[in-house]
């Protein structure tokens, strides 16, 4: 197991370096740089002024030199300074955003897992009933609704019309911190983030459970007189969960994508909002730093998923 983990970690490191090179190259290929983003196109600015600003930021250097300088500093933990934020260091800036994003994603995934698994079980157990049909239709809507649409509709309905939840932010501006305030701001974006995942998990859970329910050992358990509830929960669900666990792990990356939309709509101060703002303003150091850390997190979660998978199913051998 230790060799397996070490090998996966080494591969992950190489992937991170490749990722940083790719993002660096793509950023420089994209039109516009931080100075272009800084200029108000309605207000004229001279070439000399812009050149002076570029030279001050080191953008007048050749690209390989710029990348190597970034990489050399990055391996020592120095991800540089944000260009658009009065020189705030990138590493603390990104690290302080991990917490809110993890909170949002964890809450969203927790809701999705609970709702998805519960709905999947109900749907499978009551196969071909009206409940099954209703849940399946809801799941199709959930899967096919893009995050930006559900986020905007949810914001309008629950914040503007019903006023059940705040319209954005993580805490009430200027108010002292309370857990209640945090939860009040968290619940709506987390629920909206969970919709797509819950629907996907529900479909997987349903299909997996239906397959397991026809297995011999389930029939044997029933024949031995085990109550139906325990047959489903103890015997069938545990085995049916295997593909669902894999699915949850592999959709973490997708969840990051969804979180970017949700964070933008709800102004949730996480990695997604940071990244979108950075791309808008071509804040190269922040984009590089945030991508690196998101990449590291996704790789790490995938490795952890593999380990959990192996732990759940001892038949799986890792070399």
């Amino acid at each position: 197991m230790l060799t397996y983990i070490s090998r996966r970690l080494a591969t992950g490191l190489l992937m991170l370096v490749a990722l940083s090179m790719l993002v660096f190259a793509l950023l420089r290929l994209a039109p516009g740089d931080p100075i272009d983003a800084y200029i108000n196109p309605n207000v004229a600015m001279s070439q000399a002024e812009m050149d002076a600003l570029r030279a001050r930021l080191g953008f007048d250097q050749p690209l390989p030199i710029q990348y190597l300088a970034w990489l050399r500093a990055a391996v020592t933990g120095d991800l540089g300074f944000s260009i658009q934020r009065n020189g705030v260091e990138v590493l603390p800036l990104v690290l302080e955003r991990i917490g809110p994003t993890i909170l949002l994603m964890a809450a969203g995934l927790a809701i999705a897992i609970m709702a998805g698994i519960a709905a999947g079980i109900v749907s499978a157990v009551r196969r071909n009933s009206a409940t099954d049909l209703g849940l399946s239709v809801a799941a199709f809507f959930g899967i096919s609704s893009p995050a930006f649409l559900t986020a905007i509709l949810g914001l309008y309905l629950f914040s503007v019309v019903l006023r059940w939840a705040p319209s954005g932010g993580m805490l009430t501006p200027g108010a002292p911190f309370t857990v209640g305030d945090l939860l009040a701001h968290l619940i709506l974006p987390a629920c909206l983030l969970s919709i797509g995942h819950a629907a996907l998990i529900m479909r997987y859970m349903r299909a997996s459970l239906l397959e397991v329910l026809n297995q011999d050992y389930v029939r044997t358990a029933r024949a031995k007189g085990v109550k139906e509830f325990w047959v489903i929960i103890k015997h069938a669900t545990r085995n049916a969960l295997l593909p669902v666990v894999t699915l949850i792990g592999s959709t973490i990356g997708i969840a990051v994508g969804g979180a970017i939309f949700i964070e933008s709509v709800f102004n949730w101060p996480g990695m997604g909002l940071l990244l979108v703002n950075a791309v808008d303003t071509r804040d190269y150091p922040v984009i590089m730093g945030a991508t690196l850390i998101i990449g590291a997190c996704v790789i790490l979660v995938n490795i952890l998923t593999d380990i959990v998978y192996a732990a759940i199913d001892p038949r799986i051998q890792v070399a």
Partner: protein
Amino acid sequence: MRLKPLTLALAVTALLGTTALTLPAMAQEQKTITGGFDVGPGGFQGNFNPLAATGGFTWLNVYFEPLVNYNADLTAIEGALASEFSVNPGQTEYTFKLAKETWHDGKPFTSKDVKFTVDLAKNGETGTVFAARLGAVSGVETPDERTVVIKLSRPDSGFLATLTKLMILPEHALSGFTPKELATSTWWATKPIGTGPFKFKQYVTDQYVELVADEDYRLGRPKVDRVINRYFKNTAAAVAALRAGEIQFTYVESDDVPTFKGNNAFKVIEGQSFVVNYLGFNQQVPLWKDLRVRQAVMHAIDRQAIIDSLYGGAATVANCGYVAKQLVPEGLDTYKYDPAKAKALLAEAGWDKVNGTKPITWLTYYNTPQAANVMAAVQAMLAQVGINVVPRVVDTPTYNSIIYAANPDFGQFPLVYAGLQNGPDPSGLNIGLNAAQKPPAGANFLRIEMPEVTKALDTALAETDQKQLSARYQDVCKAMNANLPWATMWVANRYGVASTKLKDFVWVPAPAGGPYNAHPEKWSVEK
């Protein structure tokens, strides 16, 4: 009744969700005004450094102050930190008498702070955007603590307008930084000290900025205890917060205005954008060399119909690059909508040989649905007379990278759709219009070389008689109208919406957010 375990689990999950959902948001303290002060085109979320500000002056001016400022009508410059000011007949020496004020940390504000600020603003190492604009300043003298004399090497009719955007900074707090350090210092966003009616309390990254009342403000203690500037990723989110009652003010898009009109809970604030939308003719491509072609473009577009149908009437036709009434003379050519005349002009100019119906890229950074509709209408109108333009919408950085490239590909922007931000100060257009301002010297990215326009601009810039200044700029307007360096379209209105609970609240959609004397110390809010 005995619940099945599965049902029980589902019920508990639902209950937890419902409980959290209905938790009340923390009630804010009384006497707090929360707004989206940096939402919209005049805002600049996340910028705290006034030396580097190209917008966001409405908010900066709540805790910093300039020497002089525009009045709320944007028609005249009046005192701010300078209680009075005068200029010598040659327009080369400005004398400012300073108001008695203290910085937010209690230290006295003096003439040395003004000299310190002007010197910083001229030093390119600070990342300043004022260096070129203060190029005429030859020296700053401080005869006493309450007097500042700024000397210019040549008359600069835009000097006072530049000073309105220059927020005065505390020497005692910043003299420990080198100019280079100041450019990237976190001081601006953590502990800035100003002289305005409110003091900086905190910035919660990408969430909000909180200011508290300055008890010692010279014009009286503010009527509210706190002002909070909430950040939003876009205008729609700010509008949602306004409707939800979480904020009391925000800029709104014109499309949102009808939904607020007639609602007693809100007051719609309407004002001119001071941005003239125009079609810019790139003079480096052969398409637009002939004046008759440019005239044909003007005659081909039914500007009033577009204003009526797509702007709901909330825009004014612009016949030159200026907006302020005193700068627009009578008798300009209005270029009435006349497709037949446009076709005739094109035929005279030999348009079939110049370009014919070959597609012409029409570059813009305007990406709102309204702009898309406007461009589609213009595209159709131009197509009717035989000019085939193809809109290309890019984001602002991309647009800037194309037009300001060191070695530009002129084929990428033969025609642009953009805005000319001006306002009360007419000299600002010079850098994008004067033949001497072609890159790299200036920002005349369309490479306009029209002797009549350049001469009019040079004459206006050299005018030392303030009474004649407007007349000189009217000449510039006439030259623009006759030569058509740009096909000027209209000036659209912009809107803010405030809760009717706000009292004595002043906001105008000024270019770059102003600044202007909004007197935030007088703002109040009902319970």
